[in-house]
């Protein structure tokens, strides 16, 4: 093995670590003391004492170990290192060596390859070939190479290859003798040989093919005979049974392989859990609402709309659940129950169902999943799947077809339902299943005109479904426009004579769901209507100095506002303007007729509804109620209270609610009034007055309980109390009103309640100024210029670099000096050797010379 020569790093370490001998340290001549200029307390210095001799010798030693070795091996080539186990170890016997090597090899291969080899058999080899493969070799010779090899062993070839040169020559000569006398060249001989061998090969192949054909033929014949052999039947049947069994098994294995792995599905929730979840959801919503009511969350942008499920991709696809339900399967059949429900729903029989669907969306999804699972378990044919795809892909675009199919299947499945279904069909027959979204208000009008309120609802429902935002790009804008048109339509329905409030009522769920889909658009639409109406009111106020009560459409819009948006918010883009609108109407719109009083009362109801949750103080509401009650007082002189705008202390229209006929109270009974006001006869008018008064008192009662906790509760209700106690002709009114009257008087204390004087909120004490010193981290001692941290760091690094550079320079110089010394030493030693050798030579020569001279002297003697 080749490998770079390396110095063991251990040596230099050893040199460094080895302590100078203690006697050297004790020797005062060896020690150099570094004098300190200042004695700094607490500073430990490592370098107060130095051992120059020791450190120099240590440095030289170190160089010898490292630099010198490097120098010596300079310009030398690499060398072989045999890393086989125990190669240079003479202590181990060769047998042991082999054994060890074998185990090592086994270990190595075992570690790498056969980690996961479960059957422990190692592959046995023979001459590097797997024995298993050798075993597999069949008798049938089908490989060309095999045949070739076999051909090689033929006598002629061996003769030609292995020293059969004579034989070949002999053969040739024999051929020559038979044909020509001319001897063939070697080239020709070889060509001949090749041709021959090829021919042989071809022959062999045809033989083999023939043999195969024959065996096959034999097999077939045997099969035909087999049937005749009666005693062989059991084996035969077993054979036949085996085959299909195997196939079945294979199929099953394959199926199992392809089958989806069991996925962890969500646990089906029990009713309790569902209820708990629902409660939790409502709790979070309520907490959110409360936060907004306090005005805390005003700046918080994160809105948690819990109508959105966790899987929602926020495209506003909320109604999805409802839609899919129409195409659910159960146990391989159409889910008739679901369909029925849906139908009922469409017929408007069960409003609760829809609310349930909207509310418990999670539940709905759960059901869906269940149904889907059922469907799968049923393992119905592919038709189902197709249908499902169709449904999910195209949604309700071809609801028409689907519904038709639905009908068919349901007829097959539930014959008993047929009659009912038929009647429902008749009712539904006229309505198409898809609608184009209205592009203008008149479109909407023409779409909805002439249908019953339920049908209108159905139409809208389908329109919304057909144009769900997830289906096409332009649908969002269409539906947003639709919301505006719907509001306009509702306004028109309310202004009709007589108003069609039933339809308005029926359309509310649609409006609500659209609003949930597009809060921004809904907000804009309601805002525009409010602002327009307020603007026209402002204009009439400026021109005439007074305005008429808002019409029923505005009242309905305000009511819808309260249904769509939370009125309890501290500040809300829609409800705050709505508040202001009501306030403006209650302060500026004059009451000149019973109808006005009605509208005023409706506004009061709305106002109370608006503040009922947040318990906010609404002075205009109480002013207006006081004013309305004032209208019932027959004697307007010397009152102990003041009514404010729009009412007057005295003047025309001030006796609007005074009973004309005292007997009317006997025939009056309490019942809710109609939102649509109409002209009435004198007796009816008196009844109306009584109803108004009744409602008015009820509202006052609600107010008293609502504002009970306000600090100025007593002062707020004092005028009303005075009016009720001293001026209202209670004895004229029916008993129920008298009861109400008494209850209110009980609720309002005679004397305002007591309160602690106001004090400022306790402020958090301002923490004392801390006097701990400011700690500045010193990165490096000594004088370093630069003020900022970065500059100091830079200076420090510069300094360090300089120092290191100098040190390195010094080291290099020492190295070169050392090397030069070594080289000189080498030369010196070489010279000394040479001198010594020369001296020896001279010596031997001198000896020789001496001997020779002695011999010569001897001869001469």
């Amino acid at each position, binding site marked *: 093995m080749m490998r770079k020569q390396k110095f063991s790093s251990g040596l230099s370490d050893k040199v460094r670590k080895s302590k100078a001998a203690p006697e050297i340290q004790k020797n005062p001549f060896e020690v150099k003391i570094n004098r300190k200029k200042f004695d700094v307390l607490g500073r430990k210095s490592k370098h107060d004492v130095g051992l120059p001799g020791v450190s120099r010798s240590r440095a030289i030693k170190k160089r010898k170990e490292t630099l010198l070795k490097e120098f010596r091996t300079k310009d030398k080539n690499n060398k072989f290192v045999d890393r086989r186990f125990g190669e240079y170890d003479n202590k181990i016997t060769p047998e042991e060596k082999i054994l060890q090597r074998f185990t090592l090899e086994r270990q190595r291969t075992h570690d790498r390859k056969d980690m996961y080899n479960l059957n422990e058999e190692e592959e046995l080899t023979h001459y590097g070939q797997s024995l298993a493969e050798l075993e597999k070799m069949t008798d049938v010779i089908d490989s060309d190479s095999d045949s070739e090899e076999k051909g090689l062993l033929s006598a002629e070839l061996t003769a030609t290859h292995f020293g059969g040169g004579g034989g070949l020559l002999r053969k040739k000569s024999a051929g020559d003798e038979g044909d020509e006398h001319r001897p063939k060249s070697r080239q020709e001989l070889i060509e001949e040989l090749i041709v021959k061998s090829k021919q042989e090969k071809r022959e062999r192949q045809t033989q083999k093919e023939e043999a195969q054909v024959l065996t096959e033929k034999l097999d077939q014949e045997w099969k035909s005979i087999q049937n005749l052999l009666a005693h062989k039947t059991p084996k035969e049947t077993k054979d036949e049974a085996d085959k299909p069994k195997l196939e079945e098994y294979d199929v099953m294995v394959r199926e199992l392989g392809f089958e989806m792995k069991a996925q962890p599905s969500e646990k089906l929730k029990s009713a309790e859990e569902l209820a708990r979840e629902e409660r939790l959801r*409502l709790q979070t919503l309520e907490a*959110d*609402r409360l936060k907004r009511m306090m005005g805390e969350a005003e700046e918080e942008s994160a809105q948690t*709309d*819990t109508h959105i499920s966790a899987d929602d991709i926020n495209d506003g696809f909320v109604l999805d659940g409802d839609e899919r339900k129409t195409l659910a399967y159960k146990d391989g059949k159409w889910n008739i129950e679901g369909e029925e429900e849906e139908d009922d729903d469409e017929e408007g029989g069960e*409003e609760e169902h829809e*609310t349930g669907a*909207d509310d418990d969306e999670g539940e709905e999804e759960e059901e869906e999943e269940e149904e889907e699972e059922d469907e799968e378990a049923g393992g119905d044919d592919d038709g189902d799947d197709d249908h499902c795809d169709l449904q999910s892909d195209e949604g309700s675009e071809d609801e028409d077809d689907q519904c038709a199919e639905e009908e068919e299947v349901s007829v097959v499945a539930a014959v008993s339902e047929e009659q009912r279904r038929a009647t429902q069909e008749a009712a539904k027959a006229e309505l198409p299943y898809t609608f184009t979204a209205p592009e203008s208000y008149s479109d909407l009008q023409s779409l909805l005109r002439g249908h019953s309120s339920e049908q209108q609802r159905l139409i809208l429902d389908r329109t919304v479904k057909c144009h769900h935002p997830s289906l096409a790009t332009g649908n969002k804008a269409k539906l947003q426009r639709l919301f505006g048109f719907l509001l306009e339509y509702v306004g028109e329905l309310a202004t009709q004579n007589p108003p069609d*409030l039933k339809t308005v*009522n029926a359309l*509310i*769920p649609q409006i609500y769901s659209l*609003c*949930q889909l597009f*809060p921004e658009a809904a907000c804009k639409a309601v805002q525009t209507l*409010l602002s327009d109406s*307020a603007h026209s009111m402002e204009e009439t106020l400026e021109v005439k100095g007074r305005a008429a009560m808002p019409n029923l459409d505005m009242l309905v819009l305000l*009511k819808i506002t*309260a*249904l*769509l948006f*939370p009125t309890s*918010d501290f500040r*809300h*883009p829609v409800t705050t*303007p709505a*508040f202001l*609108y009501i*306030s403006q109407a209650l*302060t500026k719109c004059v009451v000149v007729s019973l109808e006005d009083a009605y509208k005023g009362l*409706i506004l009061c*109801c*709305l106002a109370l*509804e*608006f*503040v009922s*949750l*947040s*318990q*906010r103080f609404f*002075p205009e509401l109480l*002013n207006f109620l006081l004013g309305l009650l004032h209208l019932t007082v027959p004697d307007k002189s010397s009152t102990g209270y*003041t009514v*404010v*705008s729009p009412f007057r202390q005295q003047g025309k229209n001030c006796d609007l609610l005074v009973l004309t006929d005292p007997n009317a109270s006997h025939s009056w009974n309490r019942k809710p*009034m109609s*939102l649509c006001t109409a002209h009435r006869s004198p007796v009816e008018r008196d009844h109306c007055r009584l109803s108004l008064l009744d409602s008015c008192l*009820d*509202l006052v009662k609600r107010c008293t309980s609502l504002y009970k906790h*306000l*600090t*100025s509760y007593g*002062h707020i209700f004092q005028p009303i109390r005075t009016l009720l106690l001293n001026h209202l002709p209670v004895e004229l009114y029916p008993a129920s009103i008298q009861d109400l009257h008494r209850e209110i008087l009980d609720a309002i204390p005679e004397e*305002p309640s*007591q309160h*602690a004087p*106001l004090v*400022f*909120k306790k*402020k958090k004490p301002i923490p004392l100024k801390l006097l701990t010193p400011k700690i500045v981290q010193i990165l490096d001692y000594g004088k370093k210029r630069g003020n900022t941290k970065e500059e100091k760091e830079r200076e420090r690094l510069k300094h360090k670099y300089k120092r290191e550079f100098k040190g390195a320079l010094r080291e290099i110089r020492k190295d070169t000096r050392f090397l030069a010394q070594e080289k000189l030493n080498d030369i010196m030693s070489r010279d000394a050797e040479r001198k010594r050798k020369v001296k020896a030579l001279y010596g031997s020569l001198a000896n020789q010379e001496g001997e020779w001279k002695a011999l010569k002297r001897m001869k001469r003697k």
Partner: protein
Amino acid sequence: MAPSRDSNVKGESSQVSYKKTINTKTDSIIQNRKHANDIFDVIEYLQSEKEKEIIFATNACSRIFCELLDRGDLYVGVLPKEEDLMHGDRSAEEKYQIFMRHRYNSCVELLLENIGHEAFQVKETSLCTLMKFVAAEGKHPLQNLDWSEHYNFPMELMLALVKHLLSEKEDMSLLISRFQEFMEKDDVRYYVMSSVRDNITRVMERNKRAVIPVYQNNVFTLISTINIPSQASEMTNVIVRQETKHEDWKAARLKEHKRAFEQMWLVFLKYKLPSSMYKKILVILHESILPQMSDPTLMIDFLSAAYDIGGAISLLALNGLFVLIHEHNLDYPDFYKKLYSLLDPTIFHVKYRARFFHLANIFLSSTHLPVYLVAAFVKRLARLSLTAPPTALLIVLPFICNLIRRHPSCKVLIHRPSAAEEPCDDPYVMEEKEPAQCHALESSLWEIKTLQKHYHPDVAKAAMMINEPLSQQEEDISELLELSAFELMERELKAERKTIPLEFDTATGLLKSSREVLGVHFTLD
């Protein structure tokens, strides 16, 4: 078709004919004295049924008589009666002049009558013509006067004009507004003012001092627009230029103008006026009347009477009184007591709310006011704010805070640590008229505490201010004064919102919410 065309043609022909006749006659009268009698025909047209004819004739008359006045063809001096003309021994020249003068007089009379004509065009032309006559007469006086002592101005004509202008039966506001253009001339204005004064006295005495709304309205329209230049140097714009001693002329002196203005107003206010008129007068009093009077203190009686009436009129009188107190050292006893009594629940609902709070802010700005007084105001305003609409509350709450800032001793109203945690009745007596005895200083502003629960976020926030020590800097309420409910709403509508929270209770029907109140009392049927 035919008849109409016929009439059309006829109408046209008659039109053409009257224009032609009037024109030819006018020319002949001006050119030659022989045709003097044609003037009758021209004047006759002034009484015509047709407006166009009248207008045309008026213009013709204006031409004729202006020309004659220029020429001096009208008799100057005391006019002898027409009957006497026959047997008087006068020259033909003189006779002609007297004749023409009579015609002139009858023309003026007819024109004055035409001022009461139903058509505005006729009125306007007559007025303009008469003013031309005024100018012409001023240049060529018809009275034989001693030049050195008197100044030329056709007083009689002016008086008659004003008399007709201030009709007792008809609203002349349109014509009066047209007349204003003439009143820019200083002398006209001066003589109008004195004429109005005379006229008022005469008319009111004749009607036994009873209220005549139409007449008084006309007078008000006329005199409320009178605008006297602020500096004497600007008084150069006259319709009649005096040749001598122009500077001594009353109509050219600012002081005289002011005096005339003052007398006119005093006479006007001396008589009983309709109540709406009081409001109108009080609205403009401090701006356009008081500064133009030579001695505004003369208005004190009127103002204090108005201040005592109460209600909106008192509020308005406050402004005039303020000017008098502030600039003319008026000492008004019990002023603050009256101001205090002005505070009642209606104060937040009246039209002049902004003006009142502006003034109240000024009146209460002095730091030398006694604490009890300021506390009484603060407490009363707080109590009244319980019935106020949000627009008023947005003024009142900063107003109250400002008062407490100015008078730190009032801080006890919102911060009384000495008696904390001890519930007590509100010691404040709302019914007490005397601020010193209403115990306001012993009370606390629980009402503001109540308003912290107000439905409008801004109001609630403003009310929250009292929870913590007030900052030193006063809030500027001048911007809030004119805030209308609609503006407040617009502000709310325009605010940018990131998110729109929605109601999470699903709506199923119009009257089916979780907190239904409307559905309890009303049904959909």
